[in-house]
């Protein structure tokens, strides 16, 4: 994989830009224009987080792949998309878009048949990232449902407590069936 990684490294800025652009195209044009323009990480958190994820994932891909770190970068992008106007497949589509960005930027270089094996390996690696992305997407959605339940418990906290029905770490007591 050395040669293809080298090629990506040499063209990293272009690939980053193209991939970022392809991701922005999944948003309405007015929003994409704003995400692209404002570089302030606090005034434009969506643009900034996607950008951090894009740069980070590419950096990991060309270096030694650190599972933990790459998962954090995937999380940066997916945690946002899990609550935006996307279906699950649209949300994780950002990673297949990386394949497209690489193919487009390295179009000429990839004509070299000698690179085929390495290229296929790289695409496998991106598939793994996509699957990890789906896993994180699912965790985010599960978290939302968990939060709905937790919120109701907090909202009704005094009622549940007085009825001796709270059995979480706040009270340290046992579930009713175990008392």
């Amino acid at each position, binding site marked *: 994989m050395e040669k293809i990684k080298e090629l990506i490294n040499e063209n990293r800025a272009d690939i980053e830009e193209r991939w970022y652009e392809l991701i922005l195209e999944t948003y309405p044009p007015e929003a994409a224009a704003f995400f692209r323009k404002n570089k302030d990480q606090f*005034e434009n958190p*969506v643009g900034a987080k996607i950008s951090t994820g894009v740069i980070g994932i590419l950096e990991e891909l060309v270096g030694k792949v650190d599972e933990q770190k790459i998962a954090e970068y995937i999380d940066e992008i997916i945690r946002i998309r899990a609550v*935006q106007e996307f279906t699950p497949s649209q949300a994780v589509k950002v990673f297949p878009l990386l394949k497209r960005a690489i193919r487009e930027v390295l179009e000429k270089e990839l004509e070299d048949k000698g690179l085929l094996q390495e290229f296929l390996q790289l695409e496998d690696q991106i598939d793994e990232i996509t699957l990890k992305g789906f896993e994180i997407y699912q965790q985010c959605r599960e978290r939302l449902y968990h939060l709905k339940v937790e919120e109701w418990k907090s909202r009704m906290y005094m009622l549940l407590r007085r009825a001796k029905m709270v059995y979480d770490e706040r009270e340290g007591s046992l579930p009713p069936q175990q008392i």
Partner: protein
Amino acid sequence: MAKMPKPDELLKSIDWTPPEKDWMDDVPPEIKPGRFCYPAKKNILEEIGFPNPREWSPLDDDWKLPSNSREIIVEGIIDRLKKYRSFKLFMDICVRCGACADKCHYFLGSGDPKNMPVLRAELLRSVIKGELTWQGKFFGKLAGARKLNEDIIKEWFYYFYQCSECRRCSVFCPYGIDTCEVTMMGRELLHLVGCNINWILEPVRNCFKIGNHLGLQPHTVKENIEFLCWDIEEVTGLKMEVPFNKKGAEVLFVTPSGDYFADPGIYTMMGYIMLFNYLDIDWTMSTYASEGGNFGLFTSHEAMAKINAKIYHEAERLGVKFIIGGECGHMWRVKHQYMDTATGPAPKNLETPRSPITGTVFEHAKSTKMIHICEFTADLIAHGKLDLDPSRNDKYVVTYHDSCNPSRGMGFFEEPRFILKNVCNNFYDMPENTIREKTFCCGSGSGLNTDEFMDMRMRGGLPRANAVKYVHEKHGVNMLACICAIDRAALSTLMDYWVPEVQVCGVHELVANALVFPHEKKGERKRELNLRQEPLKPEGEENA
């Protein structure tokens, strides 16, 4: 001189792709679960006498609107344009400069163009133009005008309930257009045809009928607070007194009902109780005026005035001298901006608030006779009247969220920060463009803090959570203090999704943790637990 873009830069910045669909034609919106709040129940509307009570869902094709909805709403618009000069001005004056476009947290989180404040106002403005001006009638879409129809009513319902009335956009508007008031008008018009949400109207009904949003009856209010007093006794060894409906007391204390029912609001409530007991002032709570919050503000001006009036009625009945209000967000917008004109003048028995401990006269409240608990406490601290041990909050690295209404609605920035810096040793503000008047909303304000709206809440709360995450990573912040009951509930959930390492508290929870009672000073009973009944010191350190 400003940097001139080079020709190729200029060319690059031009987007040649036309929008897929003109915003005006993009109706009705595609309504999806997680992005709207459930409609008000039929019986609730009947009980409060609101129009068109019925069973319906925004997911249905037929919203069962009155056949003359268009006439009803156009009448409503004419009526409001006559009544409110601000509304008329806001509808006339916008030049579409776009300064507000990227300031809304819902737009920043969702990227939905109709969440740009300018466009949200345009949803209403275009109808006013199309229905009431000759230019609009004549030129139609060319003049940015359209006729009202059922699809547009659906669009309004979707987007006027995707605005948390936080007013961040108005800070950046060169004309000072308050889009929040546009949303208020939009919601009032929707009420006329029965399009409203249960999360707002059931609390309004509870407030009218029982006295507070949660519908807690007098004995429940009292018992809950007694329960909290037992908790305080466990932590401090002291018995607390909370007088209820006490005639002739000096101070009436009013706070949102979430403070004595929900977690983590209850710890803030314990904080108020401990402070008043420490000072030994003559105070009372009321089981009638048992709600500081006012969901009427999110409903209509009449509902807001009716709910607020209870506080003055009770202050008059009990014969108190002035009123202290707890840590609540929109409550303070009502007190600061509308109480005086909507329910004033204050009853004659009320006097200009004067701290019984320091003698400070709160001149700015001489008309409403009501002050914020943080003003009261900050004054006590400034006069050295509280014995505080900030090291008791050492396990917390604290930041402060300026709740939208106290900050933008009443310019309340310094008092809470002054208190926090005196009651804890580790305090760090978030970046400048995310606090004070530029603060980001929790994403759940104006009655949108309901669980079915979770996706939108998480999107809208992203800019706030993102700034918290920054100070968490930079300074190790693990506690987000705020002075709003909705924030305490909503930010807890928001943090759990975006920055789970950070907890949420009210300012007075931290005050009470740090407060050294006389017997503690003598070393009679050492405080080992905080109000959450957790060890005071960080793990690994013994309580000194």
